[in-house]
């Protein structure tokens, strides 16, 4: 038996979700994107901003927008004026950290209804290339003088994983193929490649071997919003609330050259926390659908293993056998993930939480997985293989 030694006062539900288009180079400002998503979520819940007690904002790296104090800047479009408003950010893990922070606002009894908004525009910093602003992520003393490109680090992790697990590039490309095809059912998706093949991925531009262009998600702008409510309020707002059953988050050291990159420890620890809270002791059997973070195709495999949805080195096998397809036994990223729907960093993580919400409510339309969904999971990861965030939701 798993012990549930985490205490909270109130059960917390997701009652609505909103989402903009995900595209590269959107006309709307970050504030306008946030407003579009937030308004959609409020409308769907039948609420106005007056009904909202607190606002939680997520946006990942300031450097992308060229705006310091991004939370304060974004608050206006996110409905945060004259309310207790907070921005959280843990790099790419932010998108799933926003509903976690909103969860503790409600679980503690502090707020009854919380507006949760994540927004990102990657296209602002496109000169000379979006990659350029990522140089500030590296250690200034021992790494930056080597003039690294951000993709180096992911290529190093991917290659180590391939080496340790004996995984072929063909097997990893299957993830990109699956997700870019899945995205065709998503009204917000940036990419839809119904006929993409493993061969297309393997023939795409080599950036940092083993990473090629189609192994990576596109750069995107976009916003996603949720409304979270306490049990009493949730039952008033909707007949079909989706409960947040468990949350978990951890940080590992930024000294990433000191540890084995083949296995994501930061995800394992975050998942253990979330599972303990949700009473899950066999995730492979108890999770019906999952949206692990997939800015790179190998990351989906890596994260499935960290989440205990596959044993170490088993995720490529499950993928090859079709287990992770939308109609498979364990559907993974039926939304299309970051590889298909797009990667406006914090918004992409929250998109995954919204997708689990829609999957559990049976509202995912063409993306709806074939098996019944009672319990789902979303996960994100950020920075130098270091920040992990996990949320488990269910009916």
């Amino acid at each position, binding site marked *: 038996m798993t012990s549930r030694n985490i205490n909270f006062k109130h059960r917390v539900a997701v009652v609505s979700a909103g989402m903009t288009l995900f595209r590269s180079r959107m*006309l709307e400002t970050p504030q306008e994107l946030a407003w579009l998503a937030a308004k*959609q979520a409020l409308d769907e819940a039948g609420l106005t901003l007056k009904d909202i007690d607190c606002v939680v904002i997520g946006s990942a790296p300031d450097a992308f927008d060229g705006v310091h104090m991004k939370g304060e800047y974004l608050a206006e479009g996110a409905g945060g004026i004259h309310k207790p408003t907070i921005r959280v950010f843990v790099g790419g893990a932010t998108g799933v950290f926003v509903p976690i922070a909103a969860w503790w606002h409600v679980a503690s009894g502090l707020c009854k209804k919380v507006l949760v908004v994540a927004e990102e525009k990657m296209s602002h910093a496109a000169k000379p290339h979006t990659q*350029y602003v990522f140089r500030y992520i590296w250690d200034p003393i021992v790494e930056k003088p080597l003039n690294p490109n951000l993709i180096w680090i992911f290529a190093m992790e991917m*290659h180590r994983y391939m080496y340790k697990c004996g995984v072929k590039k063909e097997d990893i490309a299957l993830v990109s193929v699956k997700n870019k095809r899945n995205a065709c059912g998503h009204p917000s998706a940036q990419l839809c490649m119904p006929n993409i093949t493993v061969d297309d991925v393997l023939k795409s531009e080599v*950036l940092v*071997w083993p*990473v090629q262009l189609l192994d990576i998600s596109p750069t995107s702008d976009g916003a996603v919003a949720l409304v979270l409510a306490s049990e009493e309020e949730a039952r008033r707002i909707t007949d079909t609330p989706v409960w947040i059953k468990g949350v978990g988050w951890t940080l590992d050291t930024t000294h990433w050259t000191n540890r084995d990159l083949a296995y994501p420890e930061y995800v394992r620890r975050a998942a253990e926390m979330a599972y303990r809270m949700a009473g899950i002791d066999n995730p492979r059997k108890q999770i019906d659908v999952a949206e692990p973070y997939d800015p790179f195709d190998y990351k989906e495999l890596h994260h499935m293993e960290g989440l205990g949805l596959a044993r170490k080195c088993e995720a490529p096998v499950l993928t090859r056998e079709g287990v992770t397809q939308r109609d498979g036994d364990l559907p993974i990223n039926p939304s299309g993930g970051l590889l298909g729907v797009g990667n406006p960093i914090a918004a992409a993580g929250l998109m995954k939480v919204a997708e689990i919400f829609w999957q559990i409510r049976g509202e*995912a*339309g063409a993306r709806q997985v074939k098996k019944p969904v009672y319990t789902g999971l979303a996960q994100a990861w950020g920075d130098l293989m270091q920040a992990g965030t996990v949320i488990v939701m269910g009916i």
Partner: protein
Amino acid sequence: MTGPTKPINPRGTKYDRVEFPVFEFPVVGKARYNYTTGEALGRFLAGLKEGKILGTYCNKCGRVFVPPRMYCSYCFREVDGWVEARDEGVVNTAVMSYISATRARLERPVAVGVIKLDVPGYQFDDHFFPGLMHYICGASEDDVKSMKIFGARVKARWKPPEQRTGSITDIECFEVARP
């Protein structure tokens, strides 16, 4: 079992690059950062200038830290002292970069990787070890792509002493040892 596809009618406008009036704000002047080296890395950089790779160790958990820290972040106590790593080790992971820091195509690709360093008197598994990211020289594209380079022994190629500045680039690269 399926209702309408959510989200319904998501909004947002993709702009055409030519038509949209982008407002460009350049960084003005020549702003630079001065990063402090701190206690541990300051000594590490001074060591590099002398051709030494220095680390620290924690007696409580047995970890050896390269790059060094002045505290053990696991035991949350001060480290017990300094050790000198060999300027040799094995390749833990390696990749071949075809792009620069700004994503421009490189004329010739470069190999980079993580070097797991030897420290006399200590044994390390893959879970936690002294390791540095650096260039790998003497490796062909095939050596990297075929993963033959994994586990290969490498040795630091140092700049001549008079050219060293106390930087990670005082090591030019880690060179593959040929039998």
